[in-house]
């Protein structure tokens, strides 16, 4: 597999750390001198740019939250003159005010670099045809992939999201070799292809970069077999740049973090304390080279851990584990941290499909946390033999117990009995009065 920037991606850790420290010092200096919001925050924390003399000093810096990004909408965090801006993106803003990303020419240049690295990890080279099924527009997915593919010199089909039949027709007729879209859309395409009589084994499609929504290892297996490709997980967020923050190489064992541009830390989301490599917690990112919208210690709310062991691809960058969940939906049951994604994995493993489910947490008469998992019985799970249904229930129970260490009551329920809001099921109902 190609490595886009061997010098940066395979750098000796000491050399990279030196570069990171230089860039961190400049980044703090930049926001301190140019962004009143950050000057005030740093003053309150008793930190000046001179306080940063080693990478460890990053922990002295205050966190930045999504709430603060909304409060400063639209230009409150801008760290350059408006005349230097060449592009604006915003997050979808499902809960009110959107989050803004402002890009200078240098920001777009850096974005192209990190996305070229990302696509190369999936095997993209000049001569490849990239079907870009991410939405073009304010959403960062479409243009992020576009810039990376341009940098590589690949042939881009900027088809954007939706219009499934046309996606399939173009994929077949133009010989797409690399697909970029959300993981769920790739499975949607696979199903539609079946109806259209298109066989993925006869197409030159070899790989896909999937992100912008959480997905599981089981879903990867499903995508890879249905589309006959290698499926790579990519990670990014509008607040930092869009896609291009981290991505999986061919080893698919964690996502290589572009840490020369984005400095990662893992913290305990409740105390803010920095955790060691390998410990699960909230991912915190500081941008090291952004000019338009730099951020100090941004709280992503994504749960993962850092993997610093060497990767056999040759890259030396730290990796993050595939996302384990969000701090918003982390559950603490009898003192054990767990995430809906772990429950989803178990359910996927059992029947190869993900049934609708709901987690109900309550305190019983014993005052201990009790967890009930309601699973909708779709046809794939249904048997006319009672014993088979009881075995299904026991299997879910036992596998959850080995995965989470928690004994849950499994309740099989009829389809469509779990309430959905806007098509999405509410996953967790916490009845504990804490």
């Amino acid at each position: 597999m190609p490595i886009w920037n061997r010098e940066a991606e395979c750098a000796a850790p000491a050399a990279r750390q030196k570069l990171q420290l230089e860039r961190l010092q400049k980044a703090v200096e930049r926001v301190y001198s140019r962004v009143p919001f950050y000057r005030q925050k740093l003053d309150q924390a008793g930190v000046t740019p001179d306080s940063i003399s080693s990478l460890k000093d990053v922990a002295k810096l205050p966190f930045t939250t999504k709430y603060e990004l909304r409060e400063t909408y639209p230009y409150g965090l801008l760290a350059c003159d408006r005349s230097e801006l060449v592009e604006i993106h915003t997050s979808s803003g499902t809960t009110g005010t959107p989050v803004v990303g402002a890009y200078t020419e240098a920001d777009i240049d850096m974005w192209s670099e990190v996305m070229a690295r990302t696509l190369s990890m999936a095997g993209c080279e000049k001569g490849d045809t990239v079907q870009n099924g991410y939405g073009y527009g304010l959403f960062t997915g479409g243009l992020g992939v576009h810039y990376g593919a341009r940098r590589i010199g690949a042939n881009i089909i900027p088809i954007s999201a939706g219009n499934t039949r046309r996606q399939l027709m173009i994929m077949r007729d133009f010989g797409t070799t690399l697909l970029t879209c959300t993981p769920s859309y790739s499975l949607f395409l696979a199903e539609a292809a079946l109806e259209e009589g298109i066989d993925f084994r006869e197409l030159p499609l070899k790989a896909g970069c999937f992100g912008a929504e959480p997905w599981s290892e089981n879903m990867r297996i499903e995508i890879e077999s249905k589309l006959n490709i290698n499926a790579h997980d990519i990670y990014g967020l509008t607040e930092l740049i869009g896609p291009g923050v981290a991505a999986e190489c061919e080893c698919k064992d964690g996502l290589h973090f572009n840490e020369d541009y984005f400095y990662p830390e893992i913290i305990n989301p409740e105390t803010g304390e920095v955790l060691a490599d390998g410990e699960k917690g909230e991912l915190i990112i500081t941008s090291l080279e952004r000019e338009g919208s730099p951020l100090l210690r941004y709280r992503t709310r994504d749960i993962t851990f850092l993997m610093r062991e060497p990767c056999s691809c040759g890259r030396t960058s730290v990796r993050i584990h595939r996302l384990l969940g969000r701090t918003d939906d982390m559950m603490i049951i009898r003192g054990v941290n767990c995430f809906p994604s772990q429950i989803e994995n178990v359910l996927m493993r059992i029947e190869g499909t993900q049934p609708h489910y709901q987690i109900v947490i309550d305190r019983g008469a014993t005052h201990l946390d009790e967890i009930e998992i309601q699973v909708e019985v779709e046809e794939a799970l249904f048997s006319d033999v009672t014993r088979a249904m009881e075995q299904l229930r026991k299997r879910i129970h036992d596998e959850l117990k080995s995965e989470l260490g928690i004994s849950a009551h499994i309740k099989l329920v009829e389809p469509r009995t779990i309430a959905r809001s806007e098509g999405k099921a509410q996953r967790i109902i916490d009845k504990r009065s804490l």
Partner: protein
Amino acid sequence: MIIKQISIFMENTSGRLADVTALLARAGINLRAISIADTTDFGILRMVADQPDEAVKLLRESGFTARETDVIGVEVPDHPGELARIMALFRDEGVSIEYLYASLEHKVDKAVIVIKVDDISAGLAMLEKHGFATIPSF
């Protein structure tokens, strides 16, 4: 002969059985035999109807998890010892029964037993060999 049984997943909440039977009644589907297996949380409703394909389609459209299952319907003379004779046969020939139930209809001198076995072709062959009449529908 194979009978298409309709199997439905149901939660043990009051009124679900009324919902199912009312739905089928409105569509003019006639039930021949019915049985419920229940556990603490859920039940499985099994029935034989005169239009199984239509019944399953209707149930699915109404949001039920339903499917057709192959079962054997065997006609037996309605007097003591007949069921025991069939059961002995299954035991002696080593054909496992998953479950069974009897028809709702009262036919003169005859009863219909609905039997789900793990190996349906072996079950059918065995019954035919011993002179029992298996029926395609009733």
